[in-house]
């Protein structure tokens, strides 16, 4: 085990896959010489050269389209979209082309590619550089959607995404880039579609993703220590495939479900989970399902406003206490 930052784990995951498979190539804006605007891909150009690590013009449609064309003809591209907000600029390529091509061609075309992107709030960048948009991707059939919360998961899930034969959107939470954690040395590959239970308690099951996992863990600590409410915390890690079995079995044990989502309220991923739990383990519930989300607003930029908008440890504690006490 080595201690790596979340951003170093990105480079480590890409490097691991590029070293083992010549067909893996990497492209994006400012990713090669500059090492990425978040410095998540430093060193890859030196290690693998300009043929495999390529800087692109500010042309998101060209970047994602090129990744698609390369994937259907034998390469395994990793494309970076600098901010997840910019996915909207190339959403046709992702939602209409990449997601649907295998199905529409009846399996003739395979698209083994990964689109990495920096997602979410915490940097005071405002409404066009701080959105959490993982639920956009979840709504489109044909896309796998991954969002790691820890450096080890960044490396392991990124490796799994590259090896996956289907298109994967890989959401890196940008305020986690400097977070440190233990990452397995050597070749490390995780599995898509496996949630992790990070903490167990008898009173309530909290399901969270990416940055919200850390806030949920912080809240669970306070709830147990100060208020005697013991929570299970599940890190979903991927929205598609969705590990419903882990959610259902943990909710059955506690009788309570709380989702903590960074995405705005309407059609956030927690709504889908709430629906599944209501359908499939309603009689195990001891109370209403609770969703804690960002309000349904564009994200404001000032620190005070942004902090008050994204679910915080304090808000999670308060809302759970109000429902459970």
């Amino acid at each position: 085990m080595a201690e790596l930052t979340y951003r170093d784990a990105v480079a480590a995951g890409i490097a691991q896959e590029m070293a083992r498979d010549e067909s893996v190539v990497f492209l994006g804006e400012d990713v090669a010489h500059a090492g990425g605007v978040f410095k998540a891909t430093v060193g890859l150009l030196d290690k693998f050269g300009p043929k495999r690590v390529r800087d692109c013009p500010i042309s998101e449609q060209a970047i994602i389209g090129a990744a698609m064309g390369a994937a259907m003809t034998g390469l395994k591209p990793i494309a970076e979209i600098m901010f997840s907000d910019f996915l909207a600029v190339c959403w046709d390529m992702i939602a209409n082309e990449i997601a649907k091509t295998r199905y529409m061609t009846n399996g003739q075309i395979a698209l083994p590619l990964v689109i990495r992107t920096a997602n979410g709030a915490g940097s005071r960048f405002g409404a066009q550089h701080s959105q959490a948009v993982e639920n956009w991707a979840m709504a489109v059939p044909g896309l796998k959607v991954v969002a790691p919360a820890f450096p080890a998961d960044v490396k392991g899930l990124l490796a799994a995404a590259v090896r996956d034969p289907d298109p994967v959107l890989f959401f890196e939470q940008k305020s986690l880039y400097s977070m440190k954690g233990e990452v397995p040395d050597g070749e490390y590959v995780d599995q898509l579609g496996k949630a992790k239970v990070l903490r167990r308690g008898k009173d309530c099951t909290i399901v969270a993703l990416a940055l919200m996992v850390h806030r949920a863990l912080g809240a669970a600590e306070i709830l147990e220590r100060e208020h005697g409410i013991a929570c299970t915390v599940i890190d979903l890690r991927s929205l598609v495939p969705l590990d419903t079995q882990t959610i259902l079995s943990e909710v059955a044990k506690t009788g309570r479900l709380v989702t903590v989502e960074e995405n705005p309220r309407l059609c956030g991923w927690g709504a889908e989970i709430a629906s599944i739990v209501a359908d499939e383990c309603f009689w195990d519930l001891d109370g209403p399902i609770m969703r804690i989300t960002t309000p349904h607003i564009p994200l404001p930029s000032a620190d005070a406003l942004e902090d008050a908008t994204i679910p915080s440890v304090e808000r999670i504690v308060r809302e759970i206490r109000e429902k459970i006490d």
Partner: protein
Amino acid sequence: MEAKVKGKKAVAAGDDIGRETRLALYRLQLELRYCEKRAYDLFLQNLVKGTSHLSLGQEGIAAAFGVAMRPDDWTFCTYRGHAHTLARGASMTGVLGELMGRECGLLGGKGGSMHLTDVTKGAMGSYAIIGAHLPVAAGAAWSAQYRGTEQVAVCFFGDGTTNIGAFHEALNFSVVWKLPVIFVCENNLYMEYTPISAVTAVEHPAADRASAYNLEKVVVDGNDADEVYLTAVKYMNRARKGGGPALIEAMTYRHSGHSRADPAKYRPEGELEKWLKRDPINIYRERLVKLGVADATLKDIESDTMRKVDEATAAAKASSPPSLDVIEKQVWADGGAAWRN
């Protein structure tokens, strides 16, 4: 228009196209014409559902590239893609079957007219969102360049595509990366219902933009299969050797409306008639006769081709609708559609 003149000169001066290639060009143009007309007949019989965008009048371009391309080259085309898909050798039964929503369809009934694809023939898809496939073709060309295979990606699109962002992104990207991709604008004078000249800043919507991407201006007569063929060979050979992309604007005209819903009433009187006199297939037949090809040889090709279309029609009609079992198949590479455990 200098390039156009050059092409005509080349044809007039005698070229190395050769009899066999010319007969192949004639046969393929006919095949595309007869099959497309059949698609229209089947639509009138309510056997072709959804929409369909016919290439009647534009066959010279698809046929010329179809003959000029290497079997392992890649075609990317638009929703007006029946001809380009057939031109790569895709099964006619598969094409007609797909239009009719039958099991024998190229896509098993999952894609329809606008998404014809046959990867085994290098027909890498018909794309129904304007402009999307230009970057995709660039990506395929990148893959060829990366692997050193000397394959070329050819990307066909209409004049309307030149006003969407992806066109410009793909051109810049491909030139900067020196990719082996040929962009072919089929300028049929109308974006959909609106004349392209009414909505475009330049006279030649593709070729007049070429200089912005450090490409030469190439305009050819798209209704002259020989001229398109020679141009295709020239630029594909250059691309294979690392010379980078080309942008070719082929002037042509669609004989029918934009789609099955369009009677094309917006066309000025006499315009269609003028272009019908420049029908690429008639032009080609006359040339072959002038070059000494016996009328009987041409008639044989014509009756052979009609028989092929009739047989394909019968086979497609005989095919069943797809089994409902396929609905939740092939979302993922494991063959299924599961999004949860």
